[in-house]
């Protein structure tokens, strides 16, 4: 897939002396959902703000569809839609008027039919004549998304989209994001809700203290860094782990009632033929150890993230 955004050597030091971004390079592929993951203050919003034109970079460059964000800002900005983190909208305007305003501001001719389509897709049609100040937080978030989509952008930035959002809106939003991706829109979201990145993203970039620590396919990331745990609940408690099971490095817990096995799944199956799950289960039955249940747990992006940030 060709790249839609290319970030090269981007740095930002604010007037206060705070370095928010340090030599970040990143390619965003056309049509993907990219999750930018990092704790608060890591530099996620600064990165987005530079690409969208809200903050001036100190060093480095960014191109969007091959156009430079500084010298060809009309080309780049007209292709980008931004949903900011804060719920900021014109309090006294109606929903329809504010979405139409955004379309005009981004250089598109008025198209009430298209504005209606966007507003409907966000379940806002009944509220089209309401003043924005009368809407709930979730509704305001929908309005901001509608504003960002009003000019038919190729790239959509969602800055912390689920902050303060209820379950229903989150579900709606993810449905919409997938539909947009299917229609060819590239989506970049920032989040510190890790399950969000895990659920939505095709690729994940981890940012910490202004540096991009890692960019990887989510599936590959889960595979290389995702440890799995198998817990075996025994019928009868064991006092010690039998010698034959020693190679599996098992741990015994729950008063001897539970055996835990850590492993990593790879494309070839579970780690090593001698120590894999199959081997373990065979060894258990050979030892005559009966069990009533077993379940596996996968380490979440959160665990991966915590270990990455600690490592850096």
């Amino acid at each position, binding site marked *: 897939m060709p790249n839609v955004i290319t970030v090269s050597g981007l740095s930002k030091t*604010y*007037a206060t002396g705070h370095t928010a971004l340090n030599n970040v390079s990143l390619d965003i592929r056309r049509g993907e959902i990219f999750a930018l993951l990092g704790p608060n203050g890591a530099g996620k919003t600064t990165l987005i703000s530079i690409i*969208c*034109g*809200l*903050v*001036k970079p100190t060093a480095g460059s960014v191109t969007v569809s091959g156009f430079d964000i500084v010298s060809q*800002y*009309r*080309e*780049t*900005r*007209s292709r*980008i839609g*931004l949903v*900011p983190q*804060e719920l*900021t*909208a*014109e*309090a*006294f*305007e109606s929903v329809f*008027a504010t979405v*139409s*305003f*955004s*379309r*005009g*501001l*981004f*250089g*598109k*001719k*008025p198209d009430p039919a298209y504005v209606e389509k966007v507003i409907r897709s966000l379940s806002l049609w009944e509220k089209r004549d309401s003043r924005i100040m009368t809407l709930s937080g979730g509704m305001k978030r929908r309005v901001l998304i509608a*504003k960002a989509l009003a000019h038919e952008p190729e790239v959509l930035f969602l800055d912390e989209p689920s902050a303060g959002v209820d379950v229903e809106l989150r579900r709606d939003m993810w449905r919409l994001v997938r539909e947009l991706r299917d229609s060819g829109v590239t989506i970049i979201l920032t989040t510190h809700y890790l399950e969000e990145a895990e659920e939505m993203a095709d690729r994940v970039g981890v940012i910490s203290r202004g540096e991009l620590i890692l960019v990887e396919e989510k599936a590959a990331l889960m595979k290389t860094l995702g440890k799995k745990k198998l817990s075996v609940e025994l019928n009868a408690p064991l006092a010690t782990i039998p010698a034959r099971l020693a190679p599996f490095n098992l741990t015994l817990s729950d008063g001897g009632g539970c055996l835990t096995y850590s492993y990593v799944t790879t494309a070839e199956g579970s780690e090593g033929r001698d120590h894999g799950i199959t081997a373990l289960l065979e060894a258990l039955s050979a030892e005559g150890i009966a069990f009533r249940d077993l379940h596996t747990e996968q380490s979440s992006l959160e665990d991966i993230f915590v270990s990455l940030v600690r490592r850096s």
Partner: protein
Amino acid sequence: MNLQVNLPAIRAIYTYEMNRTRRTIGQSIVSPVLSTSLYFVVFGSAIGSRMSEVGGVPYGAFIVPGLMMLTLLTQSISNAAFAIYFPRFTGTIYELLSAPVSPFEIVAGYVGAAATKSVLLGLIILATAALFVPMEVRHPFWMLTFLVLTAVTFSLFGFIIGIWADGFERLQLIPMLVITPLTFLGGTFYSLDMLPPVWRTVTLFNPVVYLVAGFRWSFFGTADVRVEVSAAMTLAFLIACLLIVRWMFRTGYRLKS
């Protein structure tokens, strides 16, 4: 340099601002017209009828151009200042900054709308004044030129204040402490001839004197200062404001970090 112009954006900003005016018509149109009309009633009709003519013009008519200027200056400034300050205050400015618009388009939209409103206000006040005192406009073309030029210049000035201000009280600071006194002392209610010679000289350092004088000339054909000087001063201030706005966008002053 990009020569294309984002016309839909100018239209969007302009329409948005004019809608805001319509929404708040009581505060943005009715209230300034009403307060200016009170001046006509008190100074023009009531007191003015007992005053002698100024340079051959009845006092009631004499103060009309000055009062129009007073409203034009204060309303242009406060309207444009508020228009750009409010999005900065609420945070909605993000959209403007992330949009494919040039500084020219932003200024054209905001200043255009603020100036339109001021010109409308000026004309409504003139029409209202004509109800109280007989009015004639000797040079209608120049009257409109001065009206539009002043409205644009001071809307630009207001725009600058709106970007500079970092609180609501600062927004009011310049109009209250500088513009209103300068206007009252700028020959709104009197001719410079009425002042002692020393004060006449001091007054010539007040830029508003030139605005009022030029505008008054377009009504009555006579003025305290030459009309060319008035026009030149207005243009000079306009250019100064344009340069400041350009500098603000070049550096991202209080807009971008």
